[in-house]
């Protein structure tokens, strides 16, 4: 019985986190936010950072600070357009507070094969925020914005 209960707890925690992110995203007017990484995969472990895809804007960092403060977790933001199209974060995103999906180009005809060598796990064209590009797509260096988790109980001071 432990596993279903754990799954239910994770789902509840994820729903709460999504609601919090969406609320803060509206408050800080940052448009579409994608929750990805461990939370989107529902393998979240306590103490790990919240991974977000956020289109850069002036309000992104204040938003991340507010989220870190409210959730007690570190927050790492990445620009979806500079995240290499091969990055696994692209393939498991919960888009929240959807304004419009950021469009990320990928080399025309590229496919993703699964780790087990099965022919095709998913076609990039099946992912709404990918758009085929003619030719090579330059992957910009990753430069995530990182907001550390607040110190334990610092709000009491």
């Amino acid at each position: 019985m432990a596993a279903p209960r754990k799954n239910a707890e994770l789902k509840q925690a994820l729903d709460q986190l999504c609601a919090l992110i969406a609320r803060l995203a509206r408050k800080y007017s940052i448009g579409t936010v994608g929750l990805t990484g461990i939370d989107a995969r529902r393998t979240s472990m306590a103490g790990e950072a919240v991974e977000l895809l956020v289109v850069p804007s002036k309000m992104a960092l204040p938003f991340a600070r507010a989220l870190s403060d409210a959730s007690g977790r570190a927050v790492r933001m990445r620009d979806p357009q500079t995240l290499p199209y091969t990055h696994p974060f692209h393939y498991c995103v919960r888009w929240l507070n959807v304004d419009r999906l950021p469009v990320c180009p990928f080399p025309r005809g590229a496919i993703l094969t699964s780790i087990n060598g099965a022919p095709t796990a998913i076609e990039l064209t099946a992912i709404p925020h990918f758009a085929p590009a003619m030719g090579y797509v330059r992957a910009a260096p990753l430069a995530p914005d990182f907001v550390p988790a607040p110190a334990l109980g610092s709000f009491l001071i």
Partner: protein
Amino acid sequence: MSLWTKTPMFSVHRGPVLIQTLATCLAARAFEETEFVTDDRGAAIAKLLGWPFTNISTALESWPTDGLGHIWALGKLVACAVQEQPFVQFDGDVMLFKALPKRVERFRLIAQSPDYAHYYTSPDMLAAQRIAGFPPAAPAFNGGLLGGNDVALVRAYAWAGLELAQKFRGSPLNGTTTSMLVEQYQLGVFAQRVGVEVGTLLPLHPTRKQVAKAGYAHLTGGAKRDPELIARAEQRLARDFPEAYVRFLAMWPQVEALTPRGGCEYASSNSSAEPTGHQLLHDLQGPTAPPSRVPSAHARKPAARR
């Protein structure tokens, strides 16, 4: 509380010392008896700043540290090893806004909270576990708060840690990795070996509500140097413990002078946006008496037993 000034990790900066001053004042309010285990320089700092401890011990002055100075957690273990009554040891960056709940006091071994498993999986940490002869993936505990009501058992844990540290004499592993192993990982291994449950004040990932209920803050790592947190701690010290704050302002230059590597990263960079200490007091309380008129210790009201 303990302070080991002989470890190379020790340095004096205004922000962390101010936070420790607030921590000592809060602890004196929460507990009936508080002891400070330190060395001669630490005792001098405590006396200058008027830290309100019931007793100051300099047990760390004579502690032999050849080749072990980098393991900064040994100061805490020595403090635990010399206790003779049930106690709880807390770090200098731990703020106890309330006494410990009874449910925690009942445990033979006490820690702040379970610690994150992934802190103990780095290659360095795995190497340290091999040197120690510990199994991987044992439970670890955050040692911001350490102690228990079975003082013999807590002392046995502390002595086991001090003994274990000998294996790391001259080791290339860094002091923080080794400290986490001999203090926090060792607590989990020790508790398993003796079959005793470690009671924790907080769960692994506490909610804001649980933290508020416990009245507990732990300003780990860089948080002690965060200007915003330092400013808030300064305001809290000035508001809740004005005598201690005025004394801190008056004595800080002498504390700095006591230490060869003394620094003042925060005070020296006070910009116009940051209130100065006396300005802050003035804003909070109106004109104040000059520092020289401040008594050496603040009054304490009776608190929970410990």
